[in-house]
């Protein structure tokens, strides 16, 4: 295990700028503790990276609830209405025909399609809402510059503190993180732009 004090020496800091501090933990507990510490220290731009959603992490990071439900609701209602208007206009207004002696704009037969349209657009809302909120796809996040980060999708747990955090200070933050006894701690840098 590398010493927590050593930074990544392969970095020429004159042409690169610090992007984030990355702390690695072997247990969800360590990770959650660290998150709680950062939260209590007033950090806002930090994140936890885990192979699976770790229970209690949201609380530990002090996150607000996700608005995705409302997006889906809106989309669902849109779908339902769109379906109704489509059928009502096509069969009832634009080209009404006598079908089986029934009124051209009979509502009952529209229910199934209205329902399916609701589901379809809701699903779009959920998936594309998710992508939007997560700002995915994003293939070039600086965190990928770390070689160890690969284990974030395997069996290790990471805490990243973004350099753009108002409270970010390379020394203070590092000390804070070292206090959480990470298995490894590194400074991830990116090219200055």
């Amino acid at each position, binding site marked *: 295990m590398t010493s927590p004090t050593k930074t990544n020496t392969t970095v020429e800091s004159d042409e690169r700028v610090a992007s984030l501090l990355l702390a690695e933990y072997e247990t969800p507990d360590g990770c959650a503790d660290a998150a709680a510490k950062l939260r209590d220290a007033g950090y806002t731009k930090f994140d936890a*990276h885990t192979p699976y959603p770790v229970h209690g992490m949201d609380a530990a990071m002090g996150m607000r609830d*996700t608005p995705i439900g409302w997006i889906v609701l809106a989309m669902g209602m849109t779908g339902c209405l769109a379906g109704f208007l489509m059928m009502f206009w096509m069969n009832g207004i634009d080209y009404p025909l006598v079908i089986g002696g029934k009124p051209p704009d009979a509502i009952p037969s529209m229910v199934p399609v209205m329902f399916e349209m609701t589901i379809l657009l809701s699903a*779009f809302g959920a998936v594309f809402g998710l992508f939007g909120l997560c700002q995915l796809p994003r293939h070039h996040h600086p965190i990928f510059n770390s070689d160890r980060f690969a284990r974030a999708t395997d069996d290790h747990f990471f805490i990243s503190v973004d350099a753009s955090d108002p409270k970010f200070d390379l020394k203070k933050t590092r000390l804070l993180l070292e206090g959480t006894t990470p298995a490894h701690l590194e400074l991830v840098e990116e090219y200055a732009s």
Partner: protein
Amino acid sequence: MSEAHFTPVEEELAHGAESPIEYLGERNLLPPTMTMRQLTETVCAPTELKTPKAWWIGFGIALMGAGILGASVSWLLFKGVGVWGNNSPVSWAWDITNFVWWIGIGHAGTLISAILFLFRQKWRTSINRFAEAMTIFAVMCAGIYPGLHTGRPWFDYYMFPVPNSMVLWPQFKSPLMWDIFAVSTYFTVSALFWYVGLIPDLATLRDRSTGDTLPRKVRRFAYGFFSLGWRGSNRHWQHYERAYMILAGLSTPLVLSVHSIVSFDFATSVEPGWHTTIFPPYFVAGAVFSGFAMVLTLMLVCRSVFDMKDVVTMKHLELMNKIMLTTGSLVGYAYAMEFFVAYYSGNQYERYVFLNRAIGPYAWAYWSMIACNVIFPQVFWWKRMRTSIPVMFVISILINIGMWFERFVIIVTTLHRDYLPAVWGMYSPTIWDMGVYIGTFGFFFTCFLLFLRWLPMIALAEVKATLPNAHPRKSHAADHADDHGHDTNLAEEPTALPAE
């Protein structure tokens, strides 16, 4: 693992539970010794190790099957629907039978991934990916039939609400239009649901494909591309879990609606034996029934081929057998009820159709249906049977046959003798009917084998979350009182949309 590791919700589940379905939320599904690393290795192995011979053989056969599909469909398009055995009065036969059958197969996938999820059944995590894949491929196969059984498939687009030279629109009173919307929605939503579930695992595969050889680079690029740069961020997990839960919540009524609407094709008609209100629930039960059977069949094969006995345990299999026993009995009840209603209605046409099913020229089909769907599954009352691999393999295949006969019986025995005896007729399939059916199997397995080879067949992230020590011992809720309840975990209890 010890009680200490449970969240309050789990405690409540384990102790304060009344309904048996909650007890199904079993623990110890995986061996306690299993570590996350091991898990990752096991699941990723099939996609990374050298392709097994068995796979190549299977794939070869499947491709041949797909070839048969190509040939049969080309001939069909070249000559016309007449190459099939359909006639008057039996205007629908194998085409719609197979359509309904394949759709039914698909339903288990959604059921496992969505409904069991909402019921907080942890054990589903080992099989849902697999089942969802099956759903998607099955729906593809099903989709072939409504598209090709028409007399002029090149005009199928008349069924889409697009302007055309005739300034006519689709006729939305037709159950076929409902079908179009239901099936296409079903396919789209299932695919999205599946893909969303795949993203974290694709990221895992991406991160494991290191090295500079070309194949590795290609892997890295491909998995990287489709994992959308997933980095396991907890801020993402939060949206992700909610979205996933919502999709599950949407898929559940969807899957019920799809087979209900498929059953409307028959239930809304005037044909005796079709015009029945029992059809929607009866079709849905049947769909789940056949779907589980198909999942089980495939599962048993992959489990032994890819040596996943630790991930897909006997516990999983037994639970599935229980569900088949239940749905099978539901279907059996429906069969009985149909007869009773036909008798009780006093409608001579209705009565005749059901008598004709039981003792008419197609009685053999009817009784094979009864045997496969109602009688054989009863062996699952005995635990020894429920836990015997050969038994459940045979039964699951029998059930698939039985469910095919169910659709055949519903469609053909109704049409071949309806109101006017003067136009009664018989139906027999041609080689081209069979060609298309066999072909769809080829297509299905081609897709399925590609899935097994290139994608994680187990929902890795979800299973990891079910491991011991997967979660912090103590809560860090601190002063953020309003947060508890949002810290959901998809392997554990999801919460409803924020009420407070």
